[in-house]
């Protein structure tokens, strides 16, 4: 550490209107929740995102945090049972805990339309047009006031909201890591 620089010097000043551009990547691992689920879909995931901070920190205790909203594009490559792809765009909402300075845990939720050519080729999903819902937790470690390394876990669900049958849904875990830039 350079002389005179304290650990708190990299604590970010994130205020209303601060924007975040992020890129995370992970690997999807399937969960077969019923006996009817037979597909072991797995593969890499890439998720570029944009977020806008909506509030100054709320609360005065450990839960003190900020709400941000944005959009995320999700690309999935399914390597099993056949090599297929999926792409979607989802609104995303995030609550970031700010009480720990440069270490910022967060909760997130996202959901939106998702297209995949895996649909129609497996027993669980009948069509290519689906929706993706994800919820998870993560943590950002600010390397500088504007740059953070991120890691986390998401639960991932893909289904078609009953627009076609069968619609058993595909469930997966998605551990991920990446970087975010704030401006």
């Amino acid at each position, binding site marked *: 550490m350079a002389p005179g620089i304290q650990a708190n010097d990299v604590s970010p000043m994130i205020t209303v209107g601060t924007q975040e551009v992020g890129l995370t990547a992970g690997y999807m691992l399937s969960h077969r929740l019923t006996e009817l689920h037979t597909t072991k879909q797995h593969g890499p995931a890439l998720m570029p995102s944009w977020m806008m901070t909506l509030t*100054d920190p709320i609360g005065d205790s450990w839960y003190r945090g900020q709400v941000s909203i944005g959009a995320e594009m999700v690309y999935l490559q399914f390597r099993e049972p056949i090599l297929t792809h999926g792409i979607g765009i989802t*609104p995303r909402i995030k609550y970031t805990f700010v009480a720990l300075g440069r270490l910022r845990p967060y909760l997130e939720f996202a959901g939106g339309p998702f297209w995949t050519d895996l649909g129609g080729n497996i027993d669980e999903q009948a069509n290519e047009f689906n929706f993706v819902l994800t919820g998870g937790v993560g943590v950002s470690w600010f390397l500088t006031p504007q740059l953070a390394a991120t890691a986390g876990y998401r639960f991932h669900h893909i289904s078609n909201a009953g627009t076609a049958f069968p619609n058993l849904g595909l469930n997966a875990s998605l551990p991920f890591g990446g970087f975010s830039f704030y401006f």
Partner: protein
Amino acid sequence: MIMTTYAFRWLVLGLVGFVVFGMTACTRWIDVKPPSSGLQETFSRSIPNDERVPLVMDTFRLSQNGVPQNPSSDVERRVLNAVQETRLFSTLVPLGGTPASAGGKTVTVRLTFDETIDPHAGHTALKGIMIGASMFLLSPIIELDYDYTAQARLELQRWDGRVTHYEARSSGTAHYNLFGASPVVIEELKGQVMETCLNSLMTQLVQDTPLYMASKTPLPASTVHTVTVKARRPTTAYTPLPTAHISTTPAP
């Protein structure tokens, strides 16, 4: 040919829709309410150079939503700049500075600055969820707000001990759509509200120009105070302690 015309029409409509959406979703504006002191007119007074005395910043208290904060040198500088623009005082001495003597006459100032911020966090979070759930289609019509209020109090103490209070309060709201949100908007809001507040405060100050003219009031006569300090005699004292006489003279 018909298909081409049809596609072109939809392309143009789509582009127009995208531009309108983008423009309305990026809208932002600021409303600043008039200050509460009631003094809106601008006063202009001239004062000869030899009638000006130094102004010394004595204390500066800053609070945000009622919670004391570290004094901000930016706010202090801004207040002093506003005072400087009135040309009422010969020099301005910031907090911790040493005044150059000007015949002993100085005006000391105690500044209190209260900021009240209401970002409407709860409403904004709910609106954010609605905007996200609509895939951002509602972002042009859902408006987000951020309120800021500044209240400044000046206490000016003349060289003869006379104290005069000045107070001004101003508030404003930044309205913006999701894509118009930016820290710059919030800074603009704070800047405009503070400017309005300081203008009101300086108007009051300029009205009292004669109070701060050097020739109006002489320095109070110097007096010599004699204080007698007598040490308490300890119960086990072996020798009697002498009585000390200390004289203090106030600085000229």
